[in-house]
Each structure stands twice: as structure tokens, then as C-alpha cells.
């Protein structure tokens, strides 16, 4: 066990965990941020997507020992009020079915829009294909990303 100091959503946390512990489980089990979901543990589904230094990353593949002073943002920190343009677009188009993967989808989408404010269909397909939605809400997710893009660039 080792002590780590993490900056998550602008707040500082101290955790005492095994250095190999993935950030996913540090968030969920140790600092009670459960919006980041476990889906596969092998970086194949994207349910655990966070922003690491502002870019989308699968937190199940990031050991806590590799974080250092770099900044982590989770769905809880995407916006203070849950009203990030991507979240608003998700609600406007009623994207979710079961909802389990959607926080990961939203984090990925927010990251995409940061680097490409007006993504093409191909940009969306390429960037989002690491995030599985077993309920099959992909068409709505694509529409929601475009809606968020439109509302952000207004």
C-alpha cells in the first residue's frame, strides 16, 4: 500500500492503495465517485471513461501510480450542475435506455467536442467506437453529439 495524492474534479484527495490499483477503482471504491462505471476492466467498453489532463481515457487502464499531479475529471466534475452542453443534449434527445454506459459515452463525447467542435459523422464514429452501448443507442448518441456541437458553437 502507498499513499497517493490525486486531483479529481478540482479537489484534492489522499488515498492509501496498492500502486497498481486502476483509477477506476480508486474513484469508485475509495473516493466515492461512482459515476465512472466498470464494464470490462480491459479497456474494451469505455464505461469507465474519464478526462485525464482534459482528454478522454479509460480509467480501468490507468494505474493510480501513473497519475502524479495530472488532473482527473469525472462525470461528477464535467459541470457543477450537470448541465454541460453534452449532458443537456443527451437529455434533449432522451438518449439513454438502461443508462449504464452513458456517463462514459458523455465523457468521450465531451472530449471529442473539445478537440473537434464540429465533428463529422466519421469523426464521431472513429472517436466514439471505443464506447459500447449494449442497448444500442448509437444513433441517438450521434445526434446528441451534433446537437451539443451546434449549441456550443452558437
Amino acid at each position, binding site marked *: 500500500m502507498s499513499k497517493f495524492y490525486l486531483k479529481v474534479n478540482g479537489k484534492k484527495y489522499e488515498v492509501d*492503495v496498492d500502486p497498481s490499483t486502476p483509477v477506476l477503482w480508486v474513484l469508485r471504491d475509495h473516493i466515492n465517485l461512482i459515476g465512472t462505471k466498470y464494464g470490462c*476492466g480491459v479497456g*474494451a467498453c469505455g464505461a469507465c471513461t474519464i478526462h485525464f489532463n482534459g482528454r478522454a481515457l479509460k480509467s480501468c487502464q490507468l494505474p493510480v501510480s501513473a497519475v502524479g499531479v495530472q488532473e482527473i475529471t469525472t462525470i461528477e466534475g464535467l459541470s457543477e450542475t450537470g448541465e454541460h452542453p453534452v449532458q443537456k443534449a443527451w437529455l434533449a434527445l432522451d438518449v*439513454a*435506455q*438502461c443508462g449504464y454506459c452513458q456517463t462514459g459515452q458523455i465523457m468521450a463525447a465531451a472530449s471529442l467536442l473539445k478537440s473537434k467542435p464540429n465533428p463529422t459523422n466519421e469523426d464521431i464514429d472513429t472517436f466514439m467506437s471505443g464506447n*459500447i452501448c449494449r*442497448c444500442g443507442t448509437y444513433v*441517438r448518441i450521434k445526434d446528441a453529439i451534433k446537437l451539443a456541437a451546434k449549441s456550443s458553437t452558437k
Partner: protein
Amino acid sequence: MEKIQDNYSRRSFLKVSSLTGGGMMIGFSWLANLIPNEALAGSNVPKEWIELNGFIKITPDNLVKLYCPNPEFGTNVMTSLPMMIAEELEVEWKKVIVEQGDFDTPRFKSQFTGGSQGMRMAWVPLRTAGATAREMLKQAASNEWDVPISELTASNGIVAHKGSNKSATYGSLATAASKLPKPEKVNLKKIGEFSLIGTPQKNVVGKNIVSGNSLFTMDFKYEGMLIAMAIHPPAFGMKLKSFDAADAIKMPGIKDVFEIQVYKDGYERASFDTRAFNNLVVVVGNSTWEVMNAKKKVNVQWEPIQTKKETILSWGGRKQEEIIPGGLESTDNHLKQMLEMQKKQGKVLRKDGDPEAAFVKAKKIIERTYSAPFLAHNPMEPISCFAHITEEKAFFVAPIQIPEMIKQNIIKNLDIPADKLEMKLARMGGGFGRRAYGHYIIEAGHISKKMNAPIKLIYSREDDITNGVYRPTYMVTYKAAIDENNNVTALQIRGGGIPEGAVHENRFPAGAFENYIAEGWSIPSNITIGAFRAPGSNFIASAEQSFLDELAESIGKDPIDYRIELLKKAKSNPVGKNNEYDVDRYIGVLELVKLKSNWGKNDKNVKRGIAAYFCHNSYAAHVVEVSMKNRQPVVENVVSALDCGFVVNPEGAKNMVEGAIVDGIGNALYGGLRFDNGSPFQKNLNQYRIIRHNEAPKKIDIHFVQNNIDPTGLGEPPFPPVFGALANALYKATGKRFYNQPFINDLNKI
């Protein structure tokens, strides 16, 4: 207005029956439940909430809380079911608070999410619950103001009397109303009189979902809660022999490592008690990562199982024996076994006319064999369950589709008296049938008892995929006799599966052919299976609809016109008995999809396939449009026509159909679980292929047949015909027919 009489309850008391066209129906006497007022009046009514019946609570300051009886796994029941109550209760939907009901089937009567039954079973009871409460509130006002109830109106949560200009909120009337007797009869609005039902309404927990708030079992926390994971045999046909936990127990954060026996010896399983492995090694610790690591350090010895018989209590209390054979099974061997079965006559399920003679006389015979692999459900949230069992009570937070079905199992295998059982129904991160099988609740219960602590059992994705309860593997052969005038004179369907088949002998096109025979068989297996979105139908529809396409082509007919021709024949001159479909509704979706897809238009880059199917009481037809890019299919568009009766929530309904289409395309192209030496080959989502963003249809265009039929269900019906429509489109795009799922294997050979 339609009059709903109280004798509704006396007509149906716990009635379990098969439904025409598949699925099952459980009829409960819902209205018997709508009388808690006598029992509650003056006694245990919480001061702040006045309960008018099992589904509605109102506070004196006029907050209205509606309970969703059914567990939610993404079909949107939590929004659509309370809409039915609100419509008749006459309250403002936007001000209503919706809550998931806990497991309390005596109170809610039915808490069943599965079989596309949610809307259908709730349609009359939930509206009646709303109307009953509304009438009681009006009666309370009538008593207070001393005016006839017939002069009162109720809307937006207010009862008003025009004559005296009096009005009162529901909140102010609720206490008095709760002490009144239940009205004998209530009036329900007819379709066409609704103001809320039939309008698109958004998911009531949408904001919680996009904010990442705690909703799922995986998210549940409890003071002193420990994390548990279980180790199960690496292969079907194996069982636990012994284990050595000396290294694991020394790992940081680990509390204990022990064995559990899930079901007692001799326990007679009910239909939803399926579980693959009865003896598990459990690792319990402080945190998930610590337990995951310690799990790898347990040294476990496995041994082969012997062939055994288990008694199963099936629907309606019928006992049947199930053979669980020993041995390590493999996909290659399954295919050989199934091909062998296809050579022999199976059990004749239905025979019309003289098919043998027709085949002898045939000018031409078309015979095609179709197959599909085992599928894992892979809900995004892996299997999990919270349990805290103490002397006082047995408390669970469980993701379970049909909680009532696990109750006896809990009582018998965990030795918990029924009155001590308390279960919260967590939102489920996907169900698809997988969470109808609640063995994990029993597992969690054993672990909590052993640890004498609150625990959360978590399956890793690997545990989830390799633990069984799969869609079976299937094979079927369709054979048609064609005479010299290009008439189809006979049809033979022979098929089965491991460990169960999918031939539905009374479904279309039965009834349309003079000479018809359907045969079925099955081969026992130690690989466990369970319901998977439209069980049976999801395979047989793909084969049937591909075969009809090929048949139409071979006799020179348009595939939609040919289907309609057969359906008309089945209506005007039906062959045989028990034809389980409504011809007009079937033709209705075909004609609608033909119109909306502009069938017949030509685009040289985009190729189209059609399929339609009826199951679980509703009708679906899809036209799938594909183009080929780098020798891989691109689904450009899917046009769908559905007849599920009246659509309660068009927004939720559309979303679910979109999901079924994506699910169908994904499983048809990529789905499949392979077995080698009894062991699932794909163990995680980097190996088990699930459809992704870039493979999803570019566009989906959904149309509902507008009618006044009571809702007939939608979770499953759109799913089965997707496979066939895609196969038929792929044929047009590649010139090859696709007989074996997943299609990607044959696509990659082109």
C-alpha cells in the same frame, strides 16, 4: 368511456398461461390490491404521505408520488407505467414524483419486466388505480361540500365544483379520501380521450443518468460493506474439487476465502432458478481491486461432473426432468451433432395435408439449412447483488427482472422466512433476459450470512460472460416443394437446438401451405441457457425470413408481395388449426414498411432486404439498406413498421425499437460464443464482439401503425426480423446468401 367493473379481480386470480404466438401471461387480480385504505385508515399511515392505493401517495402539501411496480432495465417502464396512472388520476405529469417500487408483489401484484409484457399487463390495472384514487378524492370533496360527486371535476391535481365555485387540492383531500371505501366501478378514458398517454415523454431519471448519480446495484454503498467475488469452474462440465487459499488470504484487504453451495442438495429448481455452477469459491475483502487480485491467488482444483438428472418445476407447477450430461462440449462437436439430427425425422409438431407426396411430385425442391451460435447477454453492468442478512431481516439490493420468481428460492436455500425478506429493485444496467435468472441473489445471501456483514457480490466481465445462461445454439432446415407451374406445394421445417430448439410450428407461414410439416428436436447439454430477447423467435425468424426471401426469388416474386399473398391465402383459406397470427396486422406492417421505405426504388449503391415477424403479441417489419465498403457492410438506413397496438410513450417506444435494430444487426453480424473443451472461448469484451458506433446504422426511420388496439408490447418484437432483413440485404449487396450466424465469418471469406 369504458366501464371497468370490479369483477375484473374475480375473473383472474394468478393465472399462468401460454400466449398465442409465444411468451407467457401471468394474470393477477390487481384490483384486489386497491383496498389498502381500510387497513391503513387511522393506523400506520405515515403522516406526511397518504397512500391511496399501492401505486399512489399524496402529501397534504400536494406532492404526488407514483410508484413504478416493474423493475427497470432500460425499457423505460419507469416512465411509461406511471404515465398510465397519472392520466387517470388527473395530475400534472411534470410535477409528479416517480419512484421505483420495492419488491412487494402482494402490494403491486405484478412486478414483471420481461416477455414484452410491461405495458400490456399494466394497461387496465394501472389506469384503474389512477381512476380509483381520483374517484376517492372526488368522493372526499363531495362529502365535505355536500354536493353530488357527479357535479365535481378533477384535473391537474384539483377537485372543483363549478356550481359553488369551490376547489380543493388533492393534498388537502387525501387524508379523508384514504378512509373512504373503494368505488365499485370506475370509468376509464378510451383511446382518443387521453392527454398524457400517447404523448412523447422523457425518461424520468434522465438527469440522474447523465449526472452519474447512484442508480445501479454496482453503485450501492452501505456502512461496513465488503466486496465479494466468486470463482466458478473454467468449463461447463466441471465442478469444484478442492482449493487452497493460503496465499490469497494473506493478500492485503482480504477478509476470508470460502466455499458456498448455492442451492441445497435436492432443491427442485423453478424455471428461473437456472445456474451453471453450484459450488463456488468466494473471496471477500475491503475493496474490488484487492479482491480481484486475491482471486488470482486462489489455487483451485476442478473435476468433471457426472451425468445427472435434475427436477425442474416449470410454469404452472408441472415437474419435468432435465438431463445434465457430463463431458466437455465444443462448438465444433455441437455443429456435427446438430447436422446429424437434421438427417433424421424429428418429433412431428404439426402436419397439414400430405407433404411427403408433394415432395415426391415436386418439379423442384429448395432446401436450406441455417445455424446460429450461443450468445452471451453481456448487459453493460455485470452481474452484481447487495445482501445484508441479519437476525432482524434479509435485505437485498438486487437487479432482477422478475423478483417474485426468486422468492421461494431465497426462502428455501437461504432459510429466510418470507416476512423477513426486503428487497430494493435497483435499476439494471441492461437485462435482455439475463437478469430473469437470480442465482446471484442466493450467492450474495450465502456470502452475507457467512461473513455476518453487508456484502456486495460483483461479477467481473469475465465471470459474467463465462457463467452461463446463454441464448441456445440452433439449427433449422427449410425445404419447399415447387411444381411445374412455379407454385409452392409443400413446406417442411425441421430444426432444433442445444439444449432446446426454436421451431414454432403454428406461426406464419403455417396456415398458408396446403402441405406442411414442422419437426423439432433437442440435444441435452451442460451449458446453461435462458431467455434472450425474444427467445427462440430471434433465431427462427432469421431463418424463416431468409428462406421466404429465397423462395420468393426462385418463383419470380417480389418478397413483400409474396408474403402478403401468403398471408391473404392464410386468411381466405386457412390450412390447419391454431395459426397463431393476425393476418391483417401482419399485412399492416408489411404494407406500411413498403410505403415508408419507398420499396421498389432503385439505388445502385444501396441494396435492400425485407423481413417481418410476429412474436410476443406485436408485429414488426424492417427494410434494411446496406452498401459495401472495403468488403464490409455499411448499414445506411433501416426503415421499420411496428404494430404494438396503441403506443403509450412514443419517445420511449422509438428508442427501444432503435435499440432492437442495433442489437439485431450486431448479433447477426458479430454475435457468438464459442466453446472449446467446455470452456467459453471469448472471455471479455476485447474478444466477444458487440456492435460499436461505427458499425451501427447511419439512420433509423420508425413508423407505428396507428390503431386503437390496447398496447401489445414492444421490447422483443422488433428484434427477431432484423436478422433476416439484414441477411436479405447482404444477399443483394454481395450475391451471397448468409445461412450461418454470425455473418461476419462468411463475409470475410468473400
